[in-house]
């Protein structure tokens, strides 16, 4: 659900800025910020397969996987690289957006006031460029899903249902607790509101 909202909001952000709806674009970016914060928290306190510690592996783990030696559930060691890259790139994109201002002095990200006007223009230029990096990662991400699908393995079904045919002997997923999710969400929500207010002591004076 977080994933599809994220995908929809990234698409919406793209569409809205191409069509000069800068206010919607900022609104969409802040929603993405909230989702990212939630996902980062859920990656620490969430269900077993959502935790970064359960799936992020070093180069050795990735090589083992490529040699077919990995037995587990959830994100594969190679997939983990993709997860980290996507979350990281989108986080950078949101951060740049928060610091950006438009060319005309009409709209500005909530944190633009913390840096100089020139720096804010610079942030916007990089924000525009960085979207290409995000897009490239999304293309690779979708290509990987299609690659597995062509090899007869659907990754979207287990993602949505949380159910998959497991090799015998693997430990099944431990679900997260609903109240932990709720608290994570409340924290993500609160931090977003704080940033929207202009951060530290609520903006520059």
């Amino acid at each position: 659900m977080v994933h599809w909202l994220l995908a929809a909001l990234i698409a919406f952000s793209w569409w809205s800025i191409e069509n000069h709806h800068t206010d919607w674009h900022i609104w969409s970016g802040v929603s993405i910020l909230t989702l990212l914060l939630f996902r980062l928290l859920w990656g620490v306190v969430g269900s077993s397969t959502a935790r970064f510690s359960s799936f992020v592996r070093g180069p050795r783990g990735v090589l083992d996987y490529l040699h077919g030696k990995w037995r587990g559930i959830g994100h594969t060691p190679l997939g983990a690289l993709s997860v980290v890259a996507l979350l990281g790139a989108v986080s950078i994109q949101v951060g740049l957006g928060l610091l950006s201002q438009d060319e005309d002095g009409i709209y500005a990200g909530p944190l633009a006031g913390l840096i100089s006007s020139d720096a804010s223009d610079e942030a916007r230029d990089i924000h525009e460029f960085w979207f290409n990096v995000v897009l490239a990662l999304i293309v690779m991400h979708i290509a990987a899903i299609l690659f597995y699908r062509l090899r007869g393995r659907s990754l979207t079904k287990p993602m949505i249902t949380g159910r998959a045919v497991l090799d015998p002997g693997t430990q099944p997923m431990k679900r997260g607790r609903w109240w932990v999710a709720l608290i994570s969400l409340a924290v993500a929500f609160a931090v977003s509101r704080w940033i929207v207010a202009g951060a530290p002591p609520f903006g520059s004076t």
Partner: protein
Amino acid sequence: MRIAMFAAAGACALLAACGGSKTSQSNNAQANLREEGRTDPTANTTASNAMVLLAAKPVSGDQAKKVMHERHEGMEATGKAAKGLKRELDKGSPDLAAVRASAAQLANLAQKSSGWFPAGTGPNVGKTGAKPEIWQNPQDFAAKVAAFQKAASAFNAVAKGNDVGAIKARFGDLGQSCKACHDKYRAEMHH
């Protein structure tokens, strides 16, 4: 249960993003602007004045280059002043002396702007963000330039006073007059 929880998560994420008063304020400003355009009897005359200027005399050669350079510098200065104003007005207690200086500068630049678009200064002549549509819809473009000049004058007038709320509202109108024209007639520029 899980689905309901995630649905709630999504709804909250969206809520976190909206509820800002700034958006509704700028929407109001836009509505005001539209209404003014409709009811103000002087709007048409200003528009046709601006049109006279636009239609005045096509330029070419060095003269075209000179106008395009002036336009670029002028727009750059306008944007810089507007961004400075937005920053100042977003602060808790804006420095009104600084606001007044920029407001006067903007009103002055706005008056000049109607001389920045003679025929012969389009993208086929040199690098510019001015779209060819400007010269295909001279009447609409002239009306938008006139609206910009009017909004800049109104902002400059209100900035002479001390009513920060009114100053912000007129600044919002001014921004919308920039946007109305840029959305339609400015191409993406990468410096």
